[in-house]
């Protein structure tokens, strides 16, 4: 049985690598995803345009404006005159934020009255706007505290000293790339499996396989293992790219990552087999694969945290294997995740793999007989 199985696996791998169509599917989308996501997909906010309306006649306003101009976050800090101009700049999206310093800012500060600054933000880009507001707020609070210290008054707002663990500069790529490894592993696992049986059906070779001396269990294993191997090769490739090309720190154990990846791939390969059993042409298989991949990706916490989703939607994510594997890839890369945490996140994937693999095996049997 061993040699027969091996022959089948070798044959499967050869087919995948020889067919130009599957080569396109295997190489094109993952490569494009990796490059584009790594470079373009960032929620960092840099080089934004802001405007300042300084109505203050005193020295403090001018100094505050200098501080803001000195920050590397802003591409340009333009002065405007009058609220109408502020309105126009934000309306026409020429600035994401406007800083309004009131006419009595210097006087209030000197007299110990509350001196305040108003920030107006473009809510059409509310995420970026809030991050910009955070930057500006920090600059202003520091400025006010220093001014108060000069005047020997209680410095008011406590200083918030923030430190970021695991990713001290909040480099978005460090967040994106480990997640991307999980996404690409899923893509490979599902697509390769879904296409393999559909292609044999299209070509009529599946019937040949059935009349060969191979047992059903051997055929299923022969269809399960090659995508698993291809998936692991892809994981290796992209781990290498993430570490060497993009400098993402790998703080945990690679062994933990691979151990977990096997169970994750088993779970998604099971889904692929399922799609494969249901579809008769490759076109259908591709469509079916995307119908699974799109929701699985959206509801995994890949782009935004799961806890931001509506409460009723969150339980659905519990059956999504990607959800667990994302925790593992990010944890192993950035946090140096410990073995028990890896196991805690791998166990659900094992359960899902058992369900999808045995489910698709049953479906195959019933379709074959």
């Amino acid at each position, binding site marked *: 049985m061993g040699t027969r199985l091996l022959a089948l696996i070798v044959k499967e791998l050869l087919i995948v690598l020889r067919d130009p169509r599957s080569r*396109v*599917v295997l190489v*094109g*989308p993952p490569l*494009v995803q990796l490059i*584009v*996501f790594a470079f*373009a997909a*960032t*929620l*960092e906010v*840099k080089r*934004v345009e802001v405007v300042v309306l300084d109505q203050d006649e005193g020295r403090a306003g001018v100094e505050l404006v200098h501080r803001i101009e000195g920050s590397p976050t802003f591409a340009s800090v333009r002065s405007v005159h009058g609220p109408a101009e502020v309105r126009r700049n934000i*309306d*026409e*999206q020429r600035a994401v934020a406007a800083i309004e310093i009131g006419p009595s800012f210097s006087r209030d500060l000197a007299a*110990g009255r*509350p001196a*305040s*600054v*108003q*920030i*107006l*933000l473009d*809510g*059409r*880009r*509310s995420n*970026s*706007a*809030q*991050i910009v507001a955070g930057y500006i*707020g*920090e600059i*202003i*609070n520091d400025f*006010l505290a220093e001014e108060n210290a000069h005047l020997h*008054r*209680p*410095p*008011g*707002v*406590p*200083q*918030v000293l*923030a*430190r*970021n663990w695991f*990713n001290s500069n909040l480099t978005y790529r*460090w*967040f994106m790339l480990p997640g991307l490894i999980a996404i690409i592993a899923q893509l490979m696992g599902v697509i390769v499996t879904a296409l393999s049986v559909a292609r044999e059906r299209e070509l009529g070779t599946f019937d040949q396989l059935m009349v060969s001396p191979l047992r059903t269990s051997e055929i299923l294993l022969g269809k399960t293992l090659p995508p698993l191997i291809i998936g692991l090769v892809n994981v290796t490739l992209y781990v290498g790219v993430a570490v060497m090309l993009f400098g993402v720190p790998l703080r945990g154990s690679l062994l933990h990552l691979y151990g977990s990846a096997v169970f994750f791939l088993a779970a998604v390969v099971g889904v692929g087999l399922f799609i494969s059993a249901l579809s008769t042409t490759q076109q259908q298989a591709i469509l079916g694969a995307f119908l699974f991949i*799109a929701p699985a990706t959206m509801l995994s916490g890949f782009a*935004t945290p799961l806890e*931001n*989703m509506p409460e009723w*939607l969150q339980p659905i994510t519990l059956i999504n294997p990607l959800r667990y594997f994302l925790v593992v890839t990010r*944890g192993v890369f*950035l*946090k140096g995740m410990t073995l028990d*945490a890896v196991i805690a996140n791998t166990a659900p994937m094992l359960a899902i793999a058992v369900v999808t693999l045995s489910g698709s095996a049953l479906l195959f049997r019933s379709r074959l007989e």
Partner: protein
Amino acid sequence: MLKESIQIVRDPSSILMALIMPLLLLFLFGYGVNLDATHTRIGVVLEAPSPSSRDLAAAFQASRYFEVRLAADRREAERALMAGEVHGIVVVPATFDADLRKLSRRPDLQVILDGSDPNTAALVQGYVQGVVANWVALRSADAGRQMAEGVGDRLWFNPARTSRFFLVPGLVAVVMALVGTVLTALVVAREWERGTMEAMMATPVTALELLLGKVVPYFILALGSMAVCTVVAVFVFGVPFRGSAGALLAISTAFLLPALGQGLLISAGAKNQFLASQLALLSSFLPTFLLSGFLFEISSMPGAIQLVCQIVPGRWLIPSLQTVFLAGDVWPVFLQGIGVLTPMGVFLLALAVRNTKKRVA
């Protein structure tokens, strides 16, 4: 043209793709992707509980942005951060009370954030600052002293800071790219594959007429799915619609010119449906998603990619769409978008006509 319309009506797969796919996308995205860090779990460590540090902790608990786990021990909170149970820790030091009364020292608050999710970390830091500033303001007001100062911020157009309000209008652009380019490319490629395109060419219809006949039904279909998405955005997701329907129609029309041109161009170049769908997805759907400023700020990308963004039609549509939904009719924004999209569309359509002629000849 009538024939094409009848074909669309007869072939349920086009309708399915034009209406069901966008709706699926809209719902998945509308519910699944949410950048608002409300109810973010954080740990608050009171190293030495005192009246003012307890008061500050209560302020965190009252905030709608946080779900607070109190801890007396810093190590306990750090373990929770490590395990991903909380996104950040606020440490109120033992000297906090004393420092608050001192003139010389600004009291420190230590905040440790989980940098493995950078966006949430940045938002949480901003919210922590907001809570602290509010707390100081309230306290000094209570004490009858006038020492409160600081920063107030207001978010125009979206005061509740709901990320869905800007994501959903952006999604309408993605849907139009999907229908306008991907569906057109796919269906026209199928005609080439089956040879019905050549058959049409043999009739006395000119290439231009033929392509127009192809374009107009898909144009209408794309506008239809745009309308459906708008209705869902407003009535299901509660996104405000402050502009006028006429403006929405104008900018959508301008966007569909290059989108349809691109679809036709792809179908004229690609040999089969499979290749056409891959090309269309890679050149239209993904860029509209990633390089249009829909979710990711263009100004934060590397220079070379910023240049690529300029030729993505979606990049010129998204600001107008977000404006027409959230801000109202701001014609300078719309005109800029239309001004870029129209020549882009004419160019792509002309190219598509030329390539179609070449292919038949």
